[in-house]
């Protein structure tokens, strides 16, 4: 690529008096080493002597990073030249933006990668594509750093769809640029090679989707440890591929396998326990089991008709993917310790959603009321504690009835001592 750039950088017109000649009777043009060249017929150079070639139309003014007015990478100096303004103004603005949420640093990094350096020519498709990859990488790294330093799981939540959109768009762009490892496409081969590339990319995407589903199933239904070892093995393969020359073809499948394994592990999704909708309606303390589990689906334990004895009744609900519902009468107190890897914990209309949701409230029972000590864990989905099961599964109204002011009136943990 550098050679190509140098070729394009050759001056189109030579200054008067420095021309290599070429006119009748003049010596043939020579290379810098003094050897005559015969690549161009003399006629080809006639216009430059007698009839100067028309000057190339001036292109649009390009923003470039300044080389002679730079403190870091010449971005602000280039902006100053471009707009004809003192670059100090841009420097002050950039510093201010760095301290106002870090946007200045992100923009500066993007400008370093996106804006060409003064005196360079980086306009080929390869350069654009590679800079696109680099910019995306920097953006993701900045997002990662922001998530790490914010120490807040909810802070990161909105970045997920953005990140996926970014990656999806990048994949489409990469596939559509028709780059070849050994160079760009040319002439009539371009459509055919682009088609081949799209087909290959589609196969890679489909294969990666299969890897993703496989990784999630291995981690959720088999063993987290085994899935982790499989991810380590994949990492070794990619590492070996880096030395053997095929590592890049393994990157996407490797990430497609590893990321779902990590998500399933972080969410605590456990598909053991089967799948489907299960409902339990114990009517006595003896019938209330200490633990219920469903791998994927809906698990409902309804104790609204149970005659529970005073005292604590431990109850463990485990759902890998889906919903765990506990329905209690108004005279039963519920002490709740609930976790949702990704999703929602809702107790009597009080809702907490997001990632890594932990809810812990252990009120004492009022008087001689029975108290259910609930330990609920849903990997991905919802934990729901309510008084009204009828409304819970009214498919026409959804879960609207749980959010307080409804025909049932505001919900509350009425069996507990008022604090």
């Amino acid at each position, binding site marked *: 690529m550098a050679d190509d750039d140098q070729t394009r950088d050759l001056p189109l017109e030579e200054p008067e008096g420095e021309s290599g000649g070429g006119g009748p009777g003049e010596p043939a043009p020579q290379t810098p080493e003094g050897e005559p060249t015969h690549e161009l017929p003399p006629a080809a150079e006639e216009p430059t002597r007698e009839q100067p070639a028309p000057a190339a139309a001036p292109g649009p003014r390009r923003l470039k990073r300044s080389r002679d007015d730079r403190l870091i990478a010449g971005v602000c100096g280039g902006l100053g030249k471009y707009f004809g303004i003192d670059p100090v103004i841009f420097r002050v603005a950039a510093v201010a933006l760095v301290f106002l949420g870090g946007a200045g640093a992100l923009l500066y990094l993007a400008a370093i*990668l996106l804006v060409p350096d003064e005196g360079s020519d980086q306009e080929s498709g390869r350069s654009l594509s*590679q*800079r696109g*990859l*680099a910019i*995306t*990488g920097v953006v*993701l*790294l900045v*997002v*990662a*750093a922001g*998530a*790490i330093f914010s120490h*807040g*799981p909810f802070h*990161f939540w909105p*970045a*997920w769809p953005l*990140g996926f959109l970014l*990656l999806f768009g*990048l994949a489409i762009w990469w596939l559509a640029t028709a780059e070849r490892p*050994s160079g760009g496409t040319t002439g009539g081969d371009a459509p055919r090679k682009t088609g081949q590339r799209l087909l290959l990319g589609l196969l890679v995407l489909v294969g990666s989707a299969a890897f993703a589903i496989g990784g999630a199933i291995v*981690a959720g239904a088999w063993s*987290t*440890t*085994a*899935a*982790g*070892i*499989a*991810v*380590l*093995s*994949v*990492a*070794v393969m*990619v*590492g070996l*591929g*880096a*030395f*053997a*020359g095929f*590592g*890049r073809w*393994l*990157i996407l499948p*490797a*990430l497609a396998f*590893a990321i779902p*394994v*990590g*998500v399933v*592990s*972080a*969410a605590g999704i456990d598909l053991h326990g089967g799948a489907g909708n299960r409902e339990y309606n114990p009517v006595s303390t003896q019938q209330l089991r200490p633990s219920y589990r469903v791998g994927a689906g809906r698990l409902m334990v309804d104790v609204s008709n149970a005659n529970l004895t005073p005292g604590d009744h431990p109850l463990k609900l485990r759902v890998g993917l889906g919903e765990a519902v506990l329905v209690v009468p108004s005279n039963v107190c519920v002490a709740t310790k609930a976790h949702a890897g*990704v999703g929602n914990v809702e107790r009597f209309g009080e809702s907490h959603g997001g*990632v*890594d949701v932990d809810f812990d409230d252990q009120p004492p029972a009022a008087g001689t009321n029975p108290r259910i000590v609930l330990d609920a864990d849903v990997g991905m989905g919802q934990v729901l504690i309510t008084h009204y099961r009828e409304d819970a599964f009214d498919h026409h109204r959804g879960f609207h009835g749980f959010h307080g002011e409804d025909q049932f009136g505001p919900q509350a943990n009425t069996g507990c001592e008022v604090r």
Partner: protein
Amino acid sequence: MPRARLDIASIVAAVGVAVLGLLVVLDGQDVLSLHFAVLAPLICATVGATLLAMGLTRRD
């Protein structure tokens, strides 16, 4: 026979995936608890560093 050049992007991806795999193994063994607050930045950092390496290195 020409020797294949070391691909930095693949090395970066391999290291990131290896770290992820190690965390999953440790989570499976209850040595630590893997949460999204850790996983999400790790995924972003791995993908971001890989893309950055791909963008800054030539493929041919």
